[in-house]
C-alpha cells in the first residue's frame, strides 16, 4: 500500500535548539495517525513542515508518493492549529467562504459545501453572526468546518477537543471517524492519551526533537507489557509461593502477579490451579498509552518550554 504521507529524515534546527532532529515516519491512507509528545517536543514544527509553513533544513516529504509541493499540495491539506484563530469582525458565513476559497474552492462550491456542513453540525442559523459573538465551543466547531470543508486528503488536527464540552467533543469525534471512513487521512496531535487510545490506529511519539516510538497502538502496548496478569478468585485469593511468578498486589478478590523470566503464563496458571482456589478470570494487563508515554518521557529534563524560541 502506498503511503499518503512520508517524512524522511526531517531536520529543522533553530538558533538555539534542534526542534526536529532526524525524524522519519509514514502515514497510511485512510488511517488515523497520532503524533504524540510532551509540550515543546517538536510536534508543531513537524506539522508546520508538513503544512508547508516551514521548509525543512534537510530531509524530504513525500505527499501521495511525490515530493511535497507546498504551493499546490496545501489545497489538499486541512490544518487546524492548536492556537485557533478567526477574524473576529467577520460574519461567520463570509469567514468560512473566504477560508474555503483560499483552499481553492470556487465561490459556488464553497457555498454549497459550507451549507452542508452547517446543516450537519446544526449551525445553519449562524451564517450572519459575527465571530466575536460565538462562544469558545461554537468557534471551535466553525474552525473544524473551515478545516475540512474542502474535502482534504490529509487533515491535521492539533488538540481538536480542547475547549469542547463532552457533547460537542463526541460530535467532532464522530465526524473525524466519518471523514476517515470516507477516505481522508487524519493526523492527530495531542497529549491526551485516552483519546489516542480510542481514536488512533498508529502512533509516533516524539520527544526533544527525536522520534522515540513508532508503532500501532496494539504493538505499542504489546511492546511495553511487563508480564503482568490479574487473576480473579471466587472468594479469598489463594496464592502459594512458586518460582514462576511474584505477587505484585493483592486485592479483595484478585491478585496481580508478574511472571518471572523463563516461565510462560501457562506454567503460572497450572501452578495456581493445583492449589485449588476457585479462579474466575485470568487476564494479561497491558500498559495504557498513558503509562507508556510517562515511562518514555519521564526523566528527560522538564521538556523545553523555557528555552529561547528565537528562530
Amino acid at each position, binding site marked *: 500500500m502506498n503511503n499518503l504521507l512520508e517524512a524522511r529524515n526531517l531536520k529543522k534546527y533553530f538558533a538555539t535548539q534542534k526542534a526536529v532532529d532526524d525524524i522519519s515516519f509514514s502515514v497510511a491512507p485512510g488511517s488515523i495517525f497520532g503524533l504524540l509528545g510532551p509540550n515543546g517536543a517538536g510536534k508543531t514544527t513537524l506539522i*508546520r513542515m508538513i*503544512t*508547508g*509553513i516551514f*521548509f525543512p533544513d534537510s530531509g524530504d516529504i513525500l505527499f501521495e508518493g511525490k515530493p511535497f509541493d507546498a*504551493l499546490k499540495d*496545501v*489545497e489538499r*491539506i486541512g*490544518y*487546524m*492549529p492548536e*492556537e*485557533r*484563530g*478567526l*477574524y*473576529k*469582525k*467577520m460574519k461567520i458565513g463570509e469567514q468560512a467562504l*473566504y*477560508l474555503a*476559497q*483560499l*483552499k481553492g474552492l*470556487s*465561490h459556488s462550491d464553497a457555498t454549497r459545501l459550507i451549507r452542508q456542513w452547517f446543516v450537519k453540525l446544526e449551525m445553519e442559523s449562524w451564517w450572519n453572526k459575527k465571530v466575536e459573538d460565538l462562544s469558545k465551543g461554537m468557534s471551535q466547531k466553525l*474552525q473544524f468546518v*473551515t478545516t475540512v470543508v474542502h474535502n482534504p486528503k490529509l487533515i491535521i488536527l492539533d488538540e481538536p477537543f480542547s475547549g469542547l464540552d463532552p457533547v460537542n467533543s463526541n460530535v467532532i469525534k464522530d465526524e473525524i471517524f466519518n471523514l476517515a471512513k470516507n477516505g481522508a487521512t487524519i493526523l492527530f496531535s495531542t497529549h491526551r492519551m485516552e483519546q489516542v487510545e480510542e481514536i488512533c490506529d498508529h502512533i509516533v511519539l516524539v520527544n526533544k526533537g527525536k522520534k522515540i516510538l513508532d508503532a500501532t497502538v496494539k504493538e505499542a502496548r504489546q511492546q511495553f507489557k511487563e508480564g503482568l496478569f490479574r487473576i480473579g478468585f471466587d472468594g479469598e485469593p489463594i496464592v502459594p509461593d512458586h518460582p514462576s511468578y511474584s505477587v505484585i498486589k493483592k486485592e479483595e478478590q484478585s491478585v496481580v502477579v508478574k511472571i518471572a523470566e523463563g516461565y510462560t503464563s501457562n506454567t503460572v496458571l497450572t501452578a495456581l490451579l493445583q492449589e485449588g482456589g476457585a479462579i474466575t478470570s485470568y487476564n494479561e494487563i497491558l500498559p495504557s498509552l498513558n503509562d507508556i508515554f510517562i515511562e518514555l518521557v519521564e526523566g528527560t529534563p522538564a521538556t523545553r518550554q523555557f528555552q529561547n*524560541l*528565537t*528562530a
Partner: protein
Amino acid sequence: MNKSLLIIKREYLTRVRKKTFIISTIMFPLLYLLLIFGTGYIAKKTSKQLRVAVIDSSGLFDKRTVAESNLRDSSSYLEYVTANQDSVKQHFSSMGFDGYVVIPATDWRSEEHKVVLRTDKTHGIQSIVGVQNKLNSIWNNLKYQKLGIDEQTRATLDRNRISLEEENLQDKGANAGIASGVGYICAFLIYFILLIYGSQVMMGVMEEKTNRIAEVMVSSVRPFQLMLGKIIGISLVALTQFLLWIVFAFVIFNITKASGAGSNAVSGIVASAQDIFTRINIPLVLFCFGFYLLGGFFFYSSLYAAIGSAVNEDMREAQSLAFPVTMLVIFSIAIMTAAVSDPTGDLAFWGSIIPFSSPIVMMARVPFGVPGTVPWWQLALSMVLLIAGFVLTTWFAGKIYRTGILMYGKKPSWKEMAKWAFKRS
C-alpha cells in the same frame, strides 16, 4: 479566483464597508478646513484690543489726531490724556486702561524714539504690535505735516512701489505662491495618508497575529502573499478615499461657482481656483500624486507590516518599534518645508531623490513646474529610486513578516529582526 485577489478583496471590502471609513471620508475634509480657518480665526480673536492712555510730553500729539487714528484702525484704542497725568500713571487700571505710554520730550528729527508701554500684566506680541503700528501712523502724519508734504505727494510716496515677480523662462506659467500652496497641500495629504493608513496596515497585521489566524492563513497562502494582499488592499482603500475627496471638491467647486456667481467672496475663490488650474499642470501633478502616494505607501507600509508581525498584542511595543519609521515620515515633512521655500536647493534635490523622503518632498516640488524647476531626469531618477526602494523594503519586510507572524514571546529588537531578514529560508 486567484488567492492574492481574494485577500486584496477581503482587506478592501472589510474596510470600505465599515462605518468609520464613511465617517472619516466625510469628516476629514471638514476637519481639515476647520483647522485652517479655525486657527486663522482664533489667531485673529486672540489679539486683544488694548485701551491705552497716551501722555504726551513732546507736545506733538493732540486730542484730534489721536481720536482720528481710532477711527482708522480699531485694533486698539488710544486716549489722549492731559489732565491728572500722575493719577493716570497710578490708577490706570481702575480708570479702564490696560496701560499707558508717555511720549518723551523728543526731537522729531532724531532717528530713534523708544516708548514704553507700561501695563499691569503681560500682553501678547500681536496686541503690542497693534499699538505700535497705530502710534507710528500718528507719528508719520506728524512728520508729513512738519515736512510740508501734501496729500498728493504722500500718496506718491506711499503707493508708488516696485513689485517684483519671478518668471521662469523655461516655464512661464509658474507662480511660486500658488505652487508652494499646492505643494504644501499635496505633501501634507501624502503625509497624513502614510501615517494613517500605514498604522492601519500595522494594526491589521497585529490583529491577524493576536487572533492567531495567521497560522491558519499561512497554511493556505504564502506569508508574502498575505502581507502584500493586505498592503495592496489598504492602499486601494486610501485611493478610494482620495478619489472621493476629489469628487467632493469638484462638486462643491461647481456648486459654489453656479450658485454664488454674484457674491464677491465666491467669485474670488473661483477666480483663484481657475488661476491654479491655468498655472499648474494639473494632469502631471495628479499623476505624480498618485505615483508618490502609492510608492510612498508601499515603502512605508511594508515596514509597518514587518513591525506589526514582530510584536505581540501590546500596543506600546508596536509604538516603540514604529517610532523610528514614523520619525522618517515626520523628518520628510521638515525637509519639505525647506524645499518649498527653496525648490531648487541642495536639500530639496536630495530630499526628493532619496526614497524615504521623496514621496513627500518631490510632491511639494512638482507643482513648481516640470521641467522648469524639476528637470525631467530628476523626476525620473526619483521615481526609479522610489520603486527600487519599495521593492527592497517589501522584500526585507516579507522576510521579517514570515518569521515574526508565527513567533510569540518577547518583543524582538531591530537587530534580531535584521537577523530574520537575512537568514536563508
